[in-house]
């Protein structure tokens, strides 16, 4: 059984003012921007009937924001999420009323794809999400206030926002688009997680799995083990067990914050022989030709420079026996191709 700890925002420490018709909604502040895992973020916005908006991301980070009561029936919200990280959205109405709160997982139907797994590198607006305010209005077999199926939002997405459909998503073990965190039957085996000793159906007894916050990401790879909105790098109590990390030997996060974790999603697999050939230089010269040490970086030099160097190695004019041997392994056309590709790469500090 996962010990699912309520997220910080629901723990009663921060009680927002209750607003009768809207079921709450405090100041619209995005509390977790410090957690971004990439150099940039994108903003999801929209309007709701007074709601807590949460995002659970595949690197274990957690974000939440309350919609802003602007006096209308459609409260605006915006939440910044990391670029190029897969995330899922959940919205809760009456969030401060345990008896009446309604939790709804969001699925987007783009017309081509229906999925709750979102990957952004651009802002987008969800529009108005007509969330249920009353438990009587949702499918909820066990009456826990969590809608058993996601709410589907039809939406045309802008370039840079992609819906993904995975056959195995750690945030959603059974693929029903209701996150494990709220899914009381993560593996759809008919056993409620309360009595299922193996919630995610991976054959490993839950007591042997270390997923403190029950978000589906094992603590080792979870950048926010207790979903308190503080990344473990700045959280002095990673797993939220009340034991400071200094005295706690069961948190296992040595992830170095501040690392630029952007990778470039490709919209199409472009075959470039130069890139594949140049990748064979990376064993010695670093990924994409950027060396991590005093050996030369070969990224960012002009193609003609690289070709000239390779030819000098080949002829023995440049006395580098290991490079002489390597240069003889590549034809002039291959050297041309790999040099042309390397010239397109940004250089690091070790150019020579």
């Amino acid at each position, binding site marked *: 059984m996962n010990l699912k700890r309520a997220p910080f925002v629901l723990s009663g420490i921060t009680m927002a003012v209750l607003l009768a018709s809207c079921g709450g909604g405090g100041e619209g502040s995005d509390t977790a921007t410090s957690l971004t895992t990439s150099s940039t973020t994108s903003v999801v916005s929209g309007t709701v009937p007074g709601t807590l908006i949460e995002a659970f991301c595949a690197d274990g980070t957690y974000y939440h924001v309350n919609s802003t009561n602007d006096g209308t029936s459609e409260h605006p919200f915006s939440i910044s999420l990391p670029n190029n990280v897969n995330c899922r959205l959940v919205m809760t109405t009456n969030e401060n009323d345990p008896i009446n709160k309604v939790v709804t997982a969001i699925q987007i139907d783009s017309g081509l794809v229906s999925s709750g797994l979102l990957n952004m590198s651009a802002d987008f607006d969800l529009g108005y999400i007509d969330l249920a305010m009353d438990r009587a209005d949702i499918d909820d077999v066990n009456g826990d206030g969590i809608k058993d199926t996601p709410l589907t939002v039809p939406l045309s997405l802008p370039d840079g926002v992609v819906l993904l459909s995975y056959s195995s998503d750690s945030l959603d073990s059974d693929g029903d688009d209701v996150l494990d965190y709220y899914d009381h039957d993560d593996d759809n085996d008919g056993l409620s997680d309360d009595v299922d000793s193996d919630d995610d159906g991976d054959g490993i007894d839950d007591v042997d799995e270390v997923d403190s916050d029950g978000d589906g990401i094992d603590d080792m790879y979870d*950048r926010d083990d207790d979903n308190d909105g503080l990344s473990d790098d700045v959280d002095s109590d990673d797993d939220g067990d009340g034991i400071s990390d200094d005295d706690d030997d069961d948190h296992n996060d040595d992830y170095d914050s501040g690392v630029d974790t952007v990778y470039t999603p490709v919209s199409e697999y472009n075959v470039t022989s130069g890139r594949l050939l140049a990748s064979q230089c990376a064993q010695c010269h670093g990924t994409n030709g950027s060396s991590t040490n005093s050996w030369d970086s070969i990224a960012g030099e002009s193609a003609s420079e690289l070709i000239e160097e390779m030819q000098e190695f080949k002829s023995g004019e440049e006395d580098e026996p290991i490079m002489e041997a390597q240069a003889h392994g590549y034809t002039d056309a291959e050297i041309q191709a790999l040099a042309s590709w390397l010239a397109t790469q940004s250089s690091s500090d070790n150019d020579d």
Partner: protein
Amino acid sequence: MNSQLSRRSLLKALGLGLAATTLPGLVRAADTIPNIVVVGGGFAGATVAKYLKMWGGLSVQVTIIEPNSTYVSPILSNLVLNGQKTTDDLSFNYLNHSQKYAINMIHNTVDTVDNVAKSVTLGSGQVISYSKLILAPGIDFDSVPGHDFDKVPHAWKAGVQTNLLKDQIDSMQDGDSFVMTVPKAPYRCPPGPYERACVVADYLKNNKGYTGCTVTVLDANPAITVEAETFAAAFATYGIDYVHSADVISVDSDTKTVTYSVSGAASASMTAETLNVIPNQKAGSIVFAAGLTEGNWAPINPLTYESTKLNSSDVALGLDIHIIGDSQGTGLPKAGHIANSEAKICADAILRALKGLEPDPAPKTNSACYSPISSTTASWLTAVYEYNSTTKLMQPIDVIPNNDVVDKYAAGGPSTENYRAMFNWSGNLFSDTFS
């Protein structure tokens, strides 16, 4: 998580070219993003997973299944024996894979492969479906009777074994003997055993100051397999006793005695204070379990690394199963640097295949290896390999063309400059694989 879920209404986004919501540029029958499952997180597996995401981005999901959350590199691990490195220095984790490249990490074993259902079953019982499966389990050992690894370490997979051997070496007194065996080729890291003999001899003599210790190398091969001149000269300098064509028959692990036969002659035995038997090697057990081996290794197509193993009715057994690293049998050596090299060819070929494209018809791979010869010097060996369309294997290219003797491999003798270069080479190789 244990089955392809087709409940989601995904339109086949084929050829519609809608950037935002189509699944980019991929030809797929399934309605989910292809799940590429990588078994093993060493130099081959860790590299192929990273490059699949670097080059394939959101168009693929990649899962690494690897029992250990920490990988200890065998590369440089002989420097643990002389105290210049620790296994911690050579330890890598998969946080970058998880958080930088969004690769699913599962720490478990894989017991079986179902090539019809296209799924693997983990030690935990969990079943994971794959669109493409990459097996990168490294080596397994063919050990002789009596060989207990906990008493007589092989230290040919780095970590606990490395430290066990180091402790045994450190407990040696002046006058004690160190005996090691070299497995029959092909084995992991061709220069590795000879390198180890040199490093240990240097350590006993020049660090410990022992003048009476002996170092003996029992080589199953008819001669030193690589860098013969370099190692023969070093053996002479250190006074290492080298015996070729010595087949290990059995080991008495309690008394640290190895019984062997030289060129089929009557068996002889040798007892040592520190005995390091490196067993003969074969593909990782999952490759055997999947039925994809011929002899000890897996036949593959070097253009894609896809298995070419056929069953009796000439039907491919290993369709959509790729084998990279030490388990493959292509004529390429078995070592970390070239495992990384193969992984990139494999990643590119898989991404092309998912798009319906043919693989690169003329891939190049390369190997390079720096070997410490002492605590201050190292040698190196390198080659570039090309595809031979007749043999359908990779073969080394002549790299010293202006020599009277055509040599397919270039080597550099021991020097302090090479020793320093060794750390630049390994540093970039480690980062290209794990960062």
